[in-house]
């Protein structure tokens, strides 16, 4: 009896997963526990093991496909077993698409002697160029003898992939169209009068669908903005003392641990203390109630190649600077290499986002739900400041605090932020 391999529900909030990579192909023998594929959840990449020993009989979804949790993605069983795969709407669509293609191909062949449905004749050079340019050989009119597509034919294709598709489906000879793009490249617009309404329908297709991490971030940001009434307050902080402190402490840390101390590390230390003193900011808004966290778990916003990831530094209130430096760096490294485990992404009570390294002065951060507050830190800039009637140069940074007004009032937020400023300007208060 064939067994279904389902898209697993990993984590409470997971609703769907994206298939990143199949490690096995249809027909492969699977050992129990062997890795079959890799998926992307809303938080992490995961490897899925085979639940059984058997042959991978059928694969139902491909790389890049998004599948809802608990839906089958493959079947495992004995060699030659029959599987009844439930009819889905997708298969019906693909049948239609195939029929369309069969209709257009006979007319598509050129002056050469290739018959309907026969193999495309192309020189090895033409095939290579087509591969490199991402051009479908069946779109090209063969210019060589015996109906052969030659390199020159491929090279002469100066059309966007969209234009090529339209041309293929509407049976338009691209070489007859004057291109309006760079180097006379044919764009879909150039085919408008020939292709009319079809262009609008197709335009949708050129939009890149949301998937993977991008999709997750999009959803979360949307939810956050929709649900939590954001209010934002800003404060300028004199970082001179903290600067001096950092200068002294970083070499010591480097010598001891081989790690540098960044402003972010110090900000985390400061926040940890401030949040202990202002528990109303160290909270999560859950199911119309507020959960005040007994630990300070600070989320650190990290920009990775795949998108925004927020690993959580648990128990910051109990850590000294050294521990924070070690753990924060570890989390950031893991985030960048896609090595975070689920627990490292959950349980945050507050988030810090630092765009200072990009020179940003200030910005309005969006709360990381279900937390109630987030601090955005900007760049530290030397600015003239009036002190005791004279102008002095100070290192100033702007902190922005966004908070969920359902859980936190303006006054509470202001007090909290002032306290953070105080700790930053007078680090001796950190004892």
């Amino acid at each position, binding site marked *: 009896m064939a067994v279904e391999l389902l898209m697993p529900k990993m984590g409470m909030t997971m609703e769907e997963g994206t298939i990143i990579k199949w490690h096995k192909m249809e027909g492969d023998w699977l050992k129990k526990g062997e890795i079959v594929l890799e998926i992307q959840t809303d938080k992490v990449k995961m490897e899925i093991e085979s639940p059984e020993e058997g042959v991978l009989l059928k694969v139902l979804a491909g790389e890049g496909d998004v599948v809802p949790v608990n839906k089958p993605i493959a079947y495992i069983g004995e060699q030659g077993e029959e599987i009844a795969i439930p009819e889905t709407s997708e298969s019906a669509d693909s049948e239609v698409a195939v029929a369309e293609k069969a209709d257009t191909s006979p007319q598509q062949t050129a002056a050469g002697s290739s018959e309907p449905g026969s193999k495309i004749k192309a*020189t*090895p*050079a*033409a*095939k*290579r160029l087509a591969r490199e340019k991402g051009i479908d050989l069946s779109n090209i009119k063969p210019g*060589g*003898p015996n109906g052969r597509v*030659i*390199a*020159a034919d491929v090279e002469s294709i100066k059309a966007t992939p969209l234009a090529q598709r339209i041309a293929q489906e509407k049976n338009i000879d691209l070489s007859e169209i004057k291109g309006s793009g760079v180097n006379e490249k044919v764009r879909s617009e150039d085919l408008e009068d020939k292709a009319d309404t079809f262009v609008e329908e197709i335009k949708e297709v050129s939009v890149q669908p949301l998937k993977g991490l991008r999709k997750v971030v999009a959803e979360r940001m949307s939810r956050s903005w929709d649900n939590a009434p954001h209010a934002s307050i800003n404060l300028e902080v004199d970082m001179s003392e903290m600067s001096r402190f950092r200068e002294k402490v970083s070499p010591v840390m480097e010598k001891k641990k081989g790690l540098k101390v960044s402003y972010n590390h110090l900000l985390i230390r400061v926040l940890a203390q401030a949040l202990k003193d202002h528990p109303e900011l160290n909270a999560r808004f859950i199911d119309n109630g507020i959960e005040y966290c007994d630990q300070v778990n600070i989320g650190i916003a990290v920009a990775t190649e795949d998108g925004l990831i927020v690993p959580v530094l648990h128990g910051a209130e109990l850590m000294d600077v050294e521990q924070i430096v070690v753990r924060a760096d570890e989390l950031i490294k893991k985030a960048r290499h896609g090595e975070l485990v689920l627990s490292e992404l959950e349980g945050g009570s507050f988030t810090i986002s630092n765009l200072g390294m990009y020179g940003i002065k200030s910005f309005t951060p969006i709360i990381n739900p279900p937390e109630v507050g987030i601090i955005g830190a900007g760049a530290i800039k030397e600015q003239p400041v009036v002190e005791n009637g004279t102008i002095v140069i100070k290192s100033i940074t702007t902190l922005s605090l966004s908070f969920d007004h359902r859980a936190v009032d303006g006054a509470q937020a202001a007090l909290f932020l002032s306290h953070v400023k105080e700790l930053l300007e007078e680090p001796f208060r950190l004892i």
Partner: protein
Amino acid sequence: MEEITYGQAVRDAMREEMYRDENVFLMGEDIGVYGGAFGITSGMLNEFGEERVRDTPISEAGFVGAGVGAAMVGMRPIVEIMFSDFVTMCFDQIVNQAAKIRYMLGGQVSVPLVIRTPGGSGTGAAAQHSQSLEALFAHIPGLKVVMPANAYDAKGLLKSAIRDDNPVLFFEHKLLYKKKVSVPKEDYTVPFGVADIKRSGGDVTIAATSIMVSRAQEAAEKLSNEGIECEVIDLRTLVPFDRETVVGSVKKTGRLVIVQEACKRGGFSSEVAAEIVESEAFDYLDAPIKRVAGKNIPIPYCIELEKAAVPQVEDIITDTKTVLY
């Protein structure tokens, strides 16, 4: 530098090597007083004496075999086979003895033997004196096969052959003996396994051997007037074969034409074509590989038929055009 003929180049190579190494000596029919059927050894008997320039009876098997034996015990014989067609008389000594002795004996001995012989047609010598048989020997492991196309390469390659510790088949061409080229006076060698790009071009690669190299060059000149730039490669040595140079050229031009005088069927150009198809150059071919070769017939006697039996300049031009589109 000096301008010398191909024949002179061959002679000078032998002379210089005989001075350089006392183990080098010559055997062949009529190479002594007569100076060789094509005059290549002319004057050498006087210069080196009859111990080192040995006229032999008409016994190819005997004296080529003797060459093998002498080579096994420390000599470096250069054996002349009067017409390359006569290699059939000593095929066993070359194929079963010279080529295999080192391998069969587990490396106990080497056979530094050079067999030099003129091949090719165009002198009205008819079927049994006009063949190009290099492919037979390119097929035998243990042998090296060399085909110089001009005096410079002939001298340098023959020296390399004499200094090589392996049995070498050195195919000269009767029609090239009188062709002159500038050649350095100092000692120089041309290495085996290195093809020579005789003319650069980006539109099509023409690989050729022996007399077909100059015909290909002539064809290239003419095609250049039509705006077609050919890259002419002289293969020089068939074994070892310089795959890299040909692959690099085909990747550049995308088209390959191979020219040989020998009959097309089973000729060395087939080997070159297969090597290219098996190489990374395959993905750069924009046209089928074209072999321009002798017809699959014995060489006829009368002039016009004799010419028609093998590729002429016009044939190379016509055939090259079939891959240019």
